[in-house]
Protein backbone atom coordinates (compact mmCIF):
# COMPACT_ATOMS: atom_id res chain seq x y z
CA UNK A 1 0.00 0.00 0.00
CA UNK A 2 2.80 2.34 0.95
CA UNK A 3 4.61 1.80 -2.33
CA UNK A 4 1.43 2.49 -4.33
CA UNK A 5 0.99 5.72 -2.40
CA UNK A 6 4.63 6.59 -3.06
CA UNK A 7 4.27 6.04 -6.79
CA UNK A 8 1.13 8.16 -6.93
CA UNK A 9 2.84 10.97 -4.99
CA UNK A 10 5.83 10.92 -7.36
CA UNK A 11 3.53 10.96 -10.39
CA UNK A 12 1.61 13.92 -8.95
CA UNK A 13 4.84 15.81 -8.35
CA UNK A 14 6.01 15.13 -11.92
CA UNK A 15 2.68 16.36 -13.29
CA UNK A 16 2.80 19.45 -11.07
CA UNK A 17 6.29 20.33 -12.32
CA UNK A 18 5.88 19.83 -16.04
CA UNK A 19 2.23 20.11 -17.02
CA UNK A 20 1.34 23.76 -16.14
CA UNK A 21 3.92 25.37 -18.49
CA UNK A 22 2.91 23.01 -21.31
CA UNK A 23 -0.76 23.71 -20.67
CA UNK A 24 -0.20 27.45 -20.76
CA UNK A 25 1.66 27.30 -24.07
CA UNK A 26 -1.02 24.93 -25.47
CA UNK A 27 1.53 22.39 -26.70
CA UNK A 28 -0.88 19.51 -27.37
CA UNK A 29 1.49 17.03 -28.98
CA UNK A 30 4.04 17.47 -26.20
CA UNK A 31 1.32 16.92 -23.60
CA UNK A 32 0.30 13.69 -25.32
CA UNK A 33 3.85 12.35 -25.44
CA UNK A 34 4.34 13.32 -21.80
CA UNK A 35 1.12 11.65 -20.66
CA UNK A 36 1.67 8.41 -22.56
CA UNK A 37 5.20 8.00 -21.22
CA UNK A 38 4.09 8.79 -17.69
CA UNK A 39 1.10 6.46 -17.93
CA UNK A 40 3.35 3.66 -19.14
CA UNK A 41 5.73 4.22 -16.23
CA UNK A 42 2.91 4.41 -13.71
CA UNK A 43 1.31 1.18 -14.93
CA UNK A 44 4.62 -0.65 -14.75
CA UNK A 45 5.33 0.79 -11.31
CA UNK A 46 1.91 -0.16 -9.97
CA UNK A 47 2.24 -3.65 -11.42
CA UNK A 48 5.51 -4.00 -9.56
CA UNK A 49 4.07 -2.65 -6.35
CA UNK A 50 1.28 -5.24 -6.61
CA UNK A 51 3.97 -7.91 -7.21
CA UNK A 52 2.60 -8.91 -10.59
CA UNK A 53 4.91 -10.82 -12.88
CA UNK A 54 6.25 -8.57 -15.66
CA UNK A 55 8.11 -10.08 -18.62
CA UNK A 56 11.76 -9.05 -18.75
CA UNK A 57 12.76 -7.73 -22.18
CA UNK A 58 16.33 -8.90 -21.61
CA UNK A 59 15.05 -12.49 -21.42
CA UNK A 60 14.09 -12.07 -25.06
CA UNK A 61 17.55 -10.72 -25.84
CA UNK A 62 19.00 -13.83 -24.18
CA UNK A 63 16.64 -16.09 -26.11
CA UNK A 64 17.69 -14.47 -29.40
CA UNK A 65 21.44 -14.59 -28.77
CA UNK A 66 21.69 -17.88 -26.89
CA UNK A 67 22.44 -20.03 -29.99
CA UNK A 68 25.12 -17.60 -31.16
CA UNK A 69 26.65 -17.28 -27.71
CA UNK A 70 26.75 -21.08 -27.23
CA UNK A 71 28.31 -21.51 -30.63
CA UNK A 72 31.02 -18.94 -29.89
CA UNK A 73 31.65 -20.56 -26.49
CA UNK A 74 32.37 -23.90 -28.14
CA UNK A 75 34.33 -22.42 -31.01
CA UNK A 76 36.60 -20.21 -28.88
CA UNK A 77 37.13 -22.72 -26.08
Amino acid at each position, binding site marked *: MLSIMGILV*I*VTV*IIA*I*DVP*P*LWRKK*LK*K*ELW*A*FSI*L*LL*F*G*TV*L*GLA*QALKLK*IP*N*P*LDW*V*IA*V*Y*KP*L*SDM*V*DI*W*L*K
Partner: protein
Amino acid sequence: MPENGKISIRQFTILVMLVTIGDSILILPSISSSFAKQDTWISGIIGLLVGLIAVYIFSALGNLYPKLTLIQAIQKILGKWFGTLVAALFLLFPLITIVTFTREMGDFITTEMMAETPTLAIQILFTCIVIFAVRLGLEVFARTGEIFLPCIILLFLLLVIFLIPQAEFEKLLPILENGIKPVIHGSFSFIAYPFLELVVFLMIFPYINQVRLIRKGFLQGALLGGLVLIILVVISILVLGADETARTIYPSYSLARRISIGLFFERVEAMVALLWMLTIFMKSTFYFYVFNLGLAQLLKLKGYRMLTLPTGFLIIVLSPIISPNITYYNNLLAEYLPYYDVTCYLLFPVFLLVIHFIKNRFKSSPDT
Protein backbone atom coordinates in the same frame (compact mmCIF):
# COMPACT_ATOMS: atom_id res chain seq x y z
CA MET B 1 14.75 22.30 -33.17
CA PRO B 2 14.75 20.72 -29.74
CA GLU B 3 18.38 21.65 -29.03
CA ASN B 4 19.95 25.04 -29.64
CA GLY B 5 23.31 24.63 -27.92
CA LYS B 6 26.64 24.17 -29.64
CA ILE B 7 29.69 22.48 -28.20
CA SER B 8 33.30 22.90 -29.22
CA ILE B 9 35.43 20.11 -30.61
CA ARG B 10 37.43 20.02 -27.37
CA GLN B 11 34.31 19.42 -25.31
CA PHE B 12 33.25 16.77 -27.79
CA THR B 13 36.59 14.94 -27.49
CA ILE B 14 36.38 15.04 -23.70
CA LEU B 15 32.81 13.74 -23.80
CA VAL B 16 33.85 10.87 -26.08
CA MET B 17 36.70 10.00 -23.74
CA LEU B 18 34.54 10.04 -20.62
CA VAL B 19 31.79 8.02 -22.27
CA THR B 20 34.36 5.48 -23.49
CA ILE B 21 35.59 5.04 -19.92
CA GLY B 22 32.01 5.14 -18.64
CA ASP B 23 30.81 2.07 -16.80
CA SER B 24 33.48 -0.06 -18.51
CA ILE B 25 36.03 0.99 -15.92
CA LEU B 26 33.98 -0.79 -13.28
CA ILE B 27 32.77 -3.98 -14.96
CA LEU B 28 35.00 -4.59 -17.96
CA PRO B 29 38.19 -6.02 -16.34
CA SER B 30 36.25 -8.76 -14.63
CA ILE B 31 34.20 -9.81 -17.68
CA SER B 32 37.08 -9.69 -20.10
CA SER B 33 39.54 -11.52 -17.86
CA SER B 34 37.07 -14.30 -17.10
CA PHE B 35 37.79 -15.42 -20.67
CA ALA B 36 41.29 -14.19 -21.44
CA LYS B 37 42.90 -14.67 -17.97
CA GLN B 38 46.37 -13.07 -17.79
CA ASP B 39 46.27 -12.08 -21.46
CA THR B 40 43.43 -9.59 -21.02
CA TRP B 41 45.77 -6.77 -21.98
CA ILE B 42 46.10 -8.34 -25.45
CA SER B 43 42.29 -8.48 -25.62
CA GLY B 44 42.35 -4.82 -24.69
CA ILE B 45 44.69 -3.94 -27.55
CA ILE B 46 42.57 -5.95 -30.02
CA GLY B 47 39.49 -4.23 -28.61
CA LEU B 48 41.06 -0.81 -29.02
CA LEU B 49 42.06 -1.44 -32.65
CA VAL B 50 38.67 -2.86 -33.67
CA GLY B 51 36.96 -0.15 -31.64
CA LEU B 52 38.82 2.59 -33.51
CA ILE B 53 37.74 1.04 -36.82
CA ALA B 54 34.15 1.04 -35.55
CA VAL B 55 34.46 4.69 -34.52
CA TYR B 56 35.79 5.45 -38.01
CA ILE B 57 32.69 3.80 -39.51
CA PHE B 58 30.43 5.83 -37.19
CA SER B 59 32.09 9.08 -38.21
CA ALA B 60 31.79 8.10 -41.87
CA LEU B 61 28.05 7.70 -41.35
CA GLY B 62 27.89 10.96 -39.43
CA ASN B 63 29.80 12.86 -42.11
CA LEU B 64 27.23 11.87 -44.76
CA TYR B 65 24.64 13.99 -43.00
CA PRO B 66 26.51 16.48 -40.81
CA LYS B 67 23.40 18.65 -40.39
CA LEU B 68 21.14 15.80 -39.23
CA THR B 69 21.08 13.75 -36.06
CA LEU B 70 21.04 9.96 -36.30
CA ILE B 71 17.25 9.77 -35.97
CA GLN B 72 16.75 12.27 -38.79
CA ALA B 73 19.41 10.56 -40.89
CA ILE B 74 17.66 7.19 -40.48
CA GLN B 75 14.41 8.77 -41.62
CA LYS B 76 16.19 10.32 -44.59
CA ILE B 77 17.99 7.13 -45.62
CA LEU B 78 15.11 4.69 -45.16
CA GLY B 79 12.20 6.87 -46.19
CA LYS B 80 9.50 8.37 -44.02
CA TRP B 81 7.45 5.44 -42.75
CA PHE B 82 10.01 2.68 -42.60
CA GLY B 83 12.57 5.16 -41.29
CA THR B 84 10.29 6.27 -38.47
CA LEU B 85 9.69 2.66 -37.47
CA VAL B 86 13.40 1.80 -37.51
CA ALA B 87 14.27 4.99 -35.62
CA ALA B 88 11.69 4.10 -32.95
CA LEU B 89 13.23 0.64 -32.63
CA PHE B 90 16.68 2.19 -32.46
CA LEU B 91 15.62 4.36 -29.53
CA LEU B 92 15.00 1.21 -27.50
CA PHE B 93 18.75 0.53 -27.41
CA PRO B 94 19.76 3.65 -25.45
CA LEU B 95 16.74 3.11 -23.19
CA ILE B 96 17.82 -0.42 -22.24
CA THR B 97 21.41 0.74 -21.89
CA ILE B 98 20.54 3.55 -19.44
CA VAL B 99 18.45 1.15 -17.39
CA THR B 100 21.45 -1.16 -17.12
CA PHE B 101 23.63 1.78 -16.03
CA THR B 102 21.31 2.75 -13.21
CA ARG B 103 21.20 -0.90 -12.25
CA GLU B 104 25.01 -1.10 -12.22
CA MET B 105 25.31 2.04 -10.12
CA GLY B 106 22.78 0.76 -7.58
CA ASP B 107 24.32 -2.71 -7.47
CA PHE B 108 27.82 -1.32 -7.04
CA ILE B 109 26.94 0.96 -4.14
CA THR B 110 24.77 -1.57 -2.33
CA THR B 111 27.20 -4.48 -2.66
CA GLU B 112 30.40 -2.59 -1.90
CA MET B 113 29.73 0.54 0.12
CA MET B 114 26.27 0.87 1.65
CA ALA B 115 25.03 -2.65 2.18
CA GLU B 116 21.89 -1.75 4.11
CA THR B 117 20.53 0.93 1.79
CA PRO B 118 17.89 -0.29 -0.65
CA THR B 119 19.15 -0.31 -4.24
CA LEU B 120 16.09 1.64 -5.28
CA ALA B 121 16.99 4.62 -3.08
CA ILE B 122 20.39 4.96 -4.74
CA GLN B 123 18.89 4.53 -8.19
CA ILE B 124 16.32 7.24 -7.53
CA LEU B 125 18.97 9.69 -6.29
CA PHE B 126 21.24 8.89 -9.23
CA THR B 127 18.46 9.26 -11.78
CA CYS B 128 17.43 12.57 -10.23
CA ILE B 129 20.91 14.00 -10.84
CA VAL B 130 20.91 12.64 -14.38
CA ILE B 131 17.51 14.21 -15.10
CA PHE B 132 18.70 17.49 -13.62
CA ALA B 133 21.80 17.49 -15.82
CA VAL B 134 19.86 16.63 -18.98
CA ARG B 135 17.28 19.33 -18.37
CA LEU B 136 20.09 21.89 -18.31
CA GLY B 137 21.09 20.90 -21.83
CA LEU B 138 24.00 19.62 -23.88
CA GLU B 139 26.23 22.68 -23.44
CA VAL B 140 26.02 22.49 -19.68
CA PHE B 141 26.94 18.87 -19.29
CA ALA B 142 29.64 19.12 -21.95
CA ARG B 143 31.18 21.81 -19.76
CA THR B 144 30.63 19.61 -16.72
CA GLY B 145 32.77 17.00 -18.44
CA GLU B 146 35.45 19.60 -19.03
CA ILE B 147 35.45 20.54 -15.36
CA PHE B 148 35.49 16.94 -14.14
CA LEU B 149 38.24 15.79 -16.47
CA PRO B 150 41.22 16.97 -14.33
CA CYS B 151 39.60 15.37 -11.29
CA ILE B 152 39.11 12.08 -13.15
CA ILE B 153 42.67 12.06 -14.50
CA LEU B 154 44.07 12.89 -11.06
CA LEU B 155 42.12 10.08 -9.39
CA PHE B 156 43.17 7.63 -12.09
CA LEU B 157 46.85 8.58 -11.75
CA LEU B 158 46.51 8.28 -7.97
CA LEU B 159 45.11 4.78 -8.37
CA VAL B 160 47.84 3.68 -10.77
CA ILE B 161 50.83 5.31 -9.07
CA PHE B 162 49.97 4.12 -5.57
CA LEU B 163 49.54 0.56 -6.81
CA ILE B 164 52.82 0.34 -8.71
CA PRO B 165 54.76 -0.84 -5.60
CA GLN B 166 52.45 -3.87 -5.40
CA ALA B 167 52.70 -4.82 -9.06
CA GLU B 168 54.24 -8.24 -9.77
CA PHE B 169 55.19 -8.74 -13.37
CA GLU B 170 55.26 -12.55 -13.09
CA LYS B 171 51.46 -12.40 -13.00
CA LEU B 172 51.42 -11.58 -16.70
CA LEU B 173 53.15 -14.90 -17.49
CA PRO B 174 52.63 -17.24 -19.28
CA ILE B 175 51.64 -15.21 -22.31
CA LEU B 176 49.08 -16.91 -24.60
CA GLU B 177 48.89 -20.00 -22.37
CA ASN B 178 45.80 -21.40 -24.13
CA GLY B 179 46.41 -19.97 -27.57
CA ILE B 180 44.79 -16.94 -29.12
CA LYS B 181 41.16 -18.12 -28.95
CA PRO B 182 40.29 -17.14 -25.34
CA VAL B 183 41.95 -13.79 -25.95
CA ILE B 184 39.64 -13.14 -28.88
CA HIS B 185 36.67 -14.21 -26.78
CA GLY B 186 37.74 -11.78 -24.09
CA SER B 187 38.06 -8.98 -26.61
CA PHE B 188 34.34 -9.16 -27.52
CA SER B 189 33.24 -7.34 -24.41
CA PHE B 190 36.24 -5.03 -24.80
CA ILE B 191 34.99 -4.01 -28.24
CA ALA B 192 31.32 -3.84 -27.35
CA TYR B 193 31.04 -1.94 -24.07
CA PRO B 194 33.46 0.94 -24.45
CA PHE B 195 33.57 1.47 -28.22
CA LEU B 196 30.43 0.23 -29.96
CA GLU B 197 28.25 2.07 -27.49
CA LEU B 198 29.79 5.30 -28.82
CA VAL B 199 27.42 5.14 -31.79
CA VAL B 200 24.99 7.40 -29.93
CA PHE B 201 27.40 10.29 -30.53
CA LEU B 202 25.93 10.44 -34.03
CA MET B 203 22.99 12.12 -32.33
CA ILE B 204 25.01 15.24 -31.51
CA PHE B 205 27.00 15.72 -34.72
CA PRO B 206 24.90 18.73 -35.80
CA TYR B 207 25.60 20.47 -32.48
CA ILE B 208 29.39 20.52 -32.84
CA ASN B 209 31.11 23.71 -33.93
CA GLN B 210 33.77 22.57 -36.37
CA VAL B 211 32.42 19.85 -38.63
CA ARG B 212 35.77 19.11 -40.26
CA LEU B 213 37.46 18.13 -37.03
CA ILE B 214 34.77 15.75 -35.80
CA ARG B 215 36.41 12.56 -37.04
CA LYS B 216 39.75 13.48 -35.48
CA GLY B 217 38.16 14.38 -32.17
CA PHE B 218 36.06 11.23 -32.16
CA LEU B 219 39.07 8.99 -32.78
CA GLN B 220 41.22 10.88 -30.24
CA GLY B 221 38.61 10.62 -27.52
CA ALA B 222 38.07 6.91 -28.13
CA LEU B 223 41.84 6.29 -28.17
CA LEU B 224 42.42 8.12 -24.88
CA GLY B 225 39.51 6.37 -23.19
CA GLY B 226 40.66 3.00 -24.53
CA LEU B 227 44.18 3.59 -23.22
CA VAL B 228 42.81 4.36 -19.76
CA LEU B 229 40.88 1.07 -19.82
CA ILE B 230 43.91 -0.93 -21.00
CA ILE B 231 46.09 0.58 -18.26
CA LEU B 232 43.41 -0.30 -15.73
CA VAL B 233 43.21 -3.90 -16.95
CA VAL B 234 47.00 -4.26 -16.85
CA ILE B 235 47.24 -2.87 -13.35
CA SER B 236 44.42 -5.09 -12.07
CA ILE B 237 46.16 -8.18 -13.43
CA LEU B 238 49.53 -7.07 -12.08
CA VAL B 239 48.17 -6.42 -8.61
CA LEU B 240 45.22 -8.78 -8.17
CA GLY B 241 46.25 -11.54 -10.59
CA ALA B 242 44.07 -12.96 -13.34
CA ASP B 243 42.00 -15.25 -11.13
CA GLU B 244 41.00 -12.65 -8.60
CA THR B 245 40.28 -10.09 -11.30
CA ALA B 246 37.88 -12.53 -12.93
CA ARG B 247 36.27 -13.56 -9.63
CA THR B 248 35.54 -10.15 -8.15
CA ILE B 249 32.61 -8.29 -9.63
CA TYR B 250 34.26 -4.88 -9.38
CA PRO B 251 38.03 -5.33 -9.72
CA SER B 252 38.70 -1.59 -9.83
CA TYR B 253 37.18 -1.24 -6.38
CA SER B 254 39.25 -4.14 -5.04
CA LEU B 255 42.27 -2.38 -6.50
CA ALA B 256 41.41 0.84 -4.72
CA ARG B 257 41.13 -1.12 -1.50
CA ARG B 258 44.67 -2.39 -1.88
CA ILE B 259 46.15 1.11 -1.79
CA SER B 260 48.30 1.32 1.29
CA ILE B 261 51.26 3.62 1.61
CA GLY B 262 53.28 3.36 4.82
CA LEU B 263 50.28 2.32 6.95
CA PHE B 264 48.86 5.84 7.07
CA PHE B 265 47.55 6.38 3.54
CA GLU B 266 44.88 3.70 3.52
CA ARG B 267 41.15 3.15 3.02
CA VAL B 268 40.93 5.66 0.22
CA GLU B 269 38.65 3.45 -1.89
CA ALA B 270 35.59 5.64 -1.40
CA MET B 271 37.57 8.59 -2.72
CA VAL B 272 38.80 6.66 -5.73
CA ALA B 273 35.27 5.35 -6.32
CA LEU B 274 34.41 8.95 -7.21
CA LEU B 275 36.35 8.28 -10.42
CA TRP B 276 33.85 5.83 -11.86
CA MET B 277 30.88 7.52 -10.28
CA LEU B 278 31.77 10.57 -12.37
CA THR B 279 32.34 8.58 -15.56
CA ILE B 280 29.17 6.52 -15.14
CA PHE B 281 27.31 9.74 -14.44
CA MET B 282 28.61 11.27 -17.67
CA LYS B 283 27.75 8.16 -19.67
CA SER B 284 24.25 7.82 -18.26
CA THR B 285 23.60 11.53 -18.70
CA PHE B 286 24.70 11.37 -22.29
CA TYR B 287 22.59 8.32 -23.05
CA PHE B 288 19.60 9.79 -21.28
CA TYR B 289 20.04 12.99 -23.24
CA VAL B 290 20.26 11.06 -26.50
CA PHE B 291 17.15 9.08 -25.69
CA ASN B 292 15.09 12.16 -24.87
CA LEU B 293 16.41 14.18 -27.79
CA GLY B 294 15.80 11.27 -30.16
CA LEU B 295 12.27 10.76 -28.90
CA ALA B 296 11.51 14.48 -29.26
CA GLN B 297 12.86 14.50 -32.81
CA LEU B 298 11.00 11.35 -33.72
CA LEU B 299 7.68 12.80 -32.52
CA LYS B 300 8.64 16.25 -33.90
CA LEU B 301 8.18 17.95 -30.53
CA LYS B 302 9.31 21.50 -29.74
CA GLY B 303 11.69 20.47 -26.98
CA TYR B 304 12.84 17.43 -25.08
CA ARG B 305 12.86 18.78 -21.52
CA MET B 306 9.26 17.87 -20.71
CA LEU B 307 10.04 14.24 -21.54
CA THR B 308 12.85 13.90 -19.01
CA LEU B 309 10.79 13.39 -15.85
CA PRO B 310 8.46 10.71 -17.27
CA THR B 311 11.37 8.86 -18.92
CA GLY B 312 13.39 9.08 -15.71
CA PHE B 313 10.47 7.60 -13.83
CA LEU B 314 10.21 4.88 -16.45
CA ILE B 315 13.90 4.03 -16.04
CA ILE B 316 13.61 3.66 -12.28
CA VAL B 317 10.56 1.44 -12.73
CA LEU B 318 12.25 -0.66 -15.41
CA SER B 319 15.50 -1.30 -13.55
CA PRO B 320 14.24 -4.03 -11.17
CA ILE B 321 12.38 -5.69 -14.05
CA ILE B 322 15.39 -5.78 -16.30
CA SER B 323 17.67 -7.61 -13.92
CA PRO B 324 16.08 -9.63 -11.12
CA ASN B 325 19.45 -10.22 -9.42
CA ILE B 326 23.12 -9.51 -9.83
CA THR B 327 24.10 -13.03 -10.97
CA TYR B 328 21.60 -12.87 -13.81
CA TYR B 329 22.91 -9.46 -14.76
CA ASN B 330 26.59 -10.41 -14.72
CA ASN B 331 25.93 -13.53 -16.75
CA LEU B 332 24.04 -11.36 -19.23
CA LEU B 333 26.93 -8.90 -19.44
CA ALA B 334 29.50 -11.62 -20.03
CA GLU B 335 27.61 -13.90 -22.39
CA TYR B 336 24.87 -12.12 -24.30
CA LEU B 337 25.02 -8.32 -24.27
CA PRO B 338 28.21 -8.06 -26.41
CA TYR B 339 26.38 -9.74 -29.31
CA TYR B 340 23.37 -7.51 -28.76
CA ASP B 341 25.68 -4.48 -28.87
CA VAL B 342 27.28 -5.71 -32.08
CA THR B 343 23.88 -6.07 -33.74
CA CYS B 344 22.46 -2.77 -32.61
CA TYR B 345 25.50 -0.56 -32.60
CA LEU B 346 27.75 -1.95 -35.34
CA LEU B 347 25.70 -3.91 -37.89
CA PHE B 348 22.96 -1.32 -37.84
CA PRO B 349 25.17 1.68 -38.85
CA VAL B 350 26.90 -0.51 -41.45
CA PHE B 351 23.47 -1.46 -42.79
CA LEU B 352 22.56 2.24 -43.01
CA LEU B 353 25.80 3.03 -44.85
CA VAL B 354 25.19 0.22 -47.34
CA ILE B 355 21.60 1.36 -47.97
CA HIS B 356 22.85 4.90 -48.46
CA PHE B 357 25.40 3.86 -51.08
CA ILE B 358 22.95 1.57 -52.91
CA LYS B 359 20.42 4.38 -53.01
CA ASN B 360 22.98 6.85 -54.31
CA ARG B 361 24.12 4.47 -57.02
CA PHE B 362 20.56 4.04 -58.27
CA LYS B 363 20.00 7.74 -58.07
CA SER B 364 23.14 8.76 -59.95
CA SER B 365 23.09 5.98 -62.58
CA PRO B 366 20.37 7.57 -64.81
CA ASP B 367 22.44 10.75 -65.04
CA THR B 368 25.61 9.08 -66.31
